[in-house]
């Protein structure tokens, strides 16, 4: 077809020009597209990965000029990595964070204050107390509440019934709980009567904090009773008693109890709202079967009061982000879009949105399910802020090491309490 060398050269030249033009067009389009990096553990966990990937894809489809690069980092690693990345000057634009880690990151000063991005309408739609603990000393909002996931006292009605207990009347006091634990242990020796996280990590202190408060103990922070107080030793003594009686299984992370609970091998479990979704995913239980088996209520009380901790997740934006408007658009979408709430927050993450009204009737019906209702009306009002910050992280190691010594060793409780006190940040 091509007759001579001249024609070949002409063709090559034409192809080259077309190629260069196409390349320039692609480059120009790539330059117009904004890339937002999103560090999160939702993409690192099997149960939440499909949900967050769908939400990201939906956001990208609705915002063709923004590309989201999801960086999957495990929950236990994310704070460490974010601090190190912020120190070395290459943080992501947006990150998922929770609990003490949120305040730790906030204390670095590397986060973008979000007040100017939050519209009046959005501020008015935020649930009361959703932003508690997310403001610095100057009142500036350093993290946006993505969802709420406080812990509740879950009880297995079938196990209670087999133990001769009233399944509709879960224990309300520590004494009632002790009686119930004894009845369960003697009637069903293979069942773990009470599942609580006794690992040594800041999350475990957050999770155990309400139990301490139930005895009136406040190890650190404002109004601290200290580790050697009567209240704290009462708590440590109780932990030792229930451990020695075989009512708890020390050393397990709360996540390790969830499959056991799904199999019907745990009577009571102190866990977040997400437990329902995890158990249903693991056991294939329908909603009806779930509600026949499980109920949730507030923590039994000792000498103190019933409280809970906020295990929900927050979203942060780093000051170093070059695309702050796009980053905020993504944060707002994750926390408030009905699609994101339906496909991630209430479904795979099994948590509550941080906004009052989603503006979606179907979603409102989902949120009126018994578990969500129990959390919203009964448990969330008992939310008590914890003294998060760098000192809380240091205290966590000392306090949880002491709790572990109490539940696994024979050292006198007074000595353990003194040792905790010595290790607490002064």
């Amino acid at each position: 077809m091509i007759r001579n060398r001249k024609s070949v050269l002409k063709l090559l030249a034409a192809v080259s020009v077309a190629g260069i033009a196409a390349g320039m067009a692609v480059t120009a389009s790539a330059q117009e597209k904004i890339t937002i990096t999103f560090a999160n553990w939702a993409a690192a966990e099997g149960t939440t990965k499909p949900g967050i990937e769908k939400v990201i894809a939906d956001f990208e489809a609705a915002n063709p000029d923004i590309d989201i690069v999801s960086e999957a980092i495990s929950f236990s690693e994310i704070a460490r990595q974010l601090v190190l990345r912020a120190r070395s000057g290459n943080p992501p634009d947006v990150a998922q964070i929770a609990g003490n880690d949120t305040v730790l990151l906030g204390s670095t000063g590397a986060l973008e204050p979000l007040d100017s991005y939050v519209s009046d309408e959005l501020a008015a739609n935020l649930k009361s107390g959703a932003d508690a603990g997310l403001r610095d000393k100057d009142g500036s909002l350093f993290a946006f509440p993505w969802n709420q996931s406080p812990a509740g006292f879950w009880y297995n009605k079938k196990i209670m019934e087999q133990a001769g207990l009233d399944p509709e009347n879960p224990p309300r006091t520590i004494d009632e709980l002790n009686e119930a634990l004894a009845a369960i242990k003697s009637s069903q020796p293979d069942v773990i009567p009470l599942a609580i996280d006794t690992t040594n990590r800041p999350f475990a202190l957050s999770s155990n904090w309400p139990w301490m408060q139930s005895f009136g103990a406040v190890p650190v922070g404002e109004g601290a009773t200290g580790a050697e107080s009567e209240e704290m030793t009462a708590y440590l003594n109780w932990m030792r008693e229930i451990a020695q009686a075989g009512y708890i299984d020390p050393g397990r992370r709360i996540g390790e109890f969830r499959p056991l609970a799904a199999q019907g091998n745990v009577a009571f479990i102190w866990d977040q709202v997400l437990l329902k979704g995890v158990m249903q995913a693991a056991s294939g239980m329908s909603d009806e079967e779930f509600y026949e088996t499980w109920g949730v209520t507030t923590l039994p009380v000792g000498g103190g009061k019933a409280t809970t901790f906020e295990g929900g997740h927050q979203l942060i934006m780093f000051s170093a982000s070059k695309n702050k408007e796009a980053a905020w658009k993504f944060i707002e979408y994750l926390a408030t879009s009905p699609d994101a709430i339906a496909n991630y927050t209430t479904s795979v993450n099994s948590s509550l949105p941080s906004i009052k009204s989603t503006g979606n009737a179907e979603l409102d019906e989902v949120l009126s399910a018994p578990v969500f209702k129990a959390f919203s009306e009964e448990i969330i009002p008992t939310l008590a802020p914890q003294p998060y910050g760098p000192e809380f992280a240091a205290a966590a190691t000392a306090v949880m090491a002491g709790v572990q010594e109490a539940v696994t060793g024979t050292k006198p409780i007074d000595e353990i309490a003194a040792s905790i006190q010595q290790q607490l940040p002064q």
Partner: protein
Amino acid sequence: MTADVITTNARARPRARREPWLDWMVLPTLIVMAVVVGYPVVYTILLSVQDYNLLDFTPANYVGAQNYAKLAADSVFWQSLLNTAIYTFGSVGIAALLGLVLALLTENLGGARFRAVRTLLLMPWAVPFVVVAFLFRYMYLQNGGIINAVLLWAGIINDPVPWLNSAMLALPAVMVANIWAMAPFFFLLVSAALSAIPNEVIESARVDRAGTWGMIWHIKLPFLRNPLLISSLLMVISNFNDFAKIWAMTQGGPGYSTSTLVIYVYRLAFESFEFGYASAVGVIWLVMLMALAWLYMRALRMEKR
């Protein structure tokens, strides 16, 4: 001829004397070492005399020996140091003994049988450390762990034993996992050393009617002394730094019962972000490792002689 040799030696000696202490040819190696080893070490030493917290974006403060003074009064540091010593020397000592016994027991097995046994005995060495840790963690589970299940089934225990959740049992339990993973290394090394013993020596001992114990004690063990010493020192250094197994099994708990120096440094640096104080612990740890490395080098030199 003799005169020539003498002349050559006489010429060689002054040349040897003129050899520079630092050859230009080693400079690239030295530069790489300075960057890869020297910089982190020097920087760690510098950090150890500063109050430096990663969460605090303000510049670090020079505090002199304050971190070291704090360390002297830190009970967790001393417990971690003691745990490190027990974990390291206990694991290496028992694993070396086990490896030696296994090598002596399988020494005379020949052919395919020996190869099969050796492969089987070496398998734990091939398993990645993190896998070993999780394997044992699940075997040790108080409820549902195979160890408790077997012991309960055999009637040896009446209640499940909290292997990793008892402040008394956790360290020995972690050491068992470590010994299981490390013993094949000693087995391999001792097997190789046994096969290197000259046949003449063994034959002579047999002619002299040496018994089994006499043969092991007076003939084989002297030959195995140096390889065992060197490999033990190597393993001591390696175990001193062991992080993966302990972290995956207990994270240093319960309490501080399995916390070693490396676990403590990790917690200080990456949970409390106290880089200054963590560096001070790191410097002490480095000094100890250097002492062990010096012993190792000395042992190597002794073997060459």
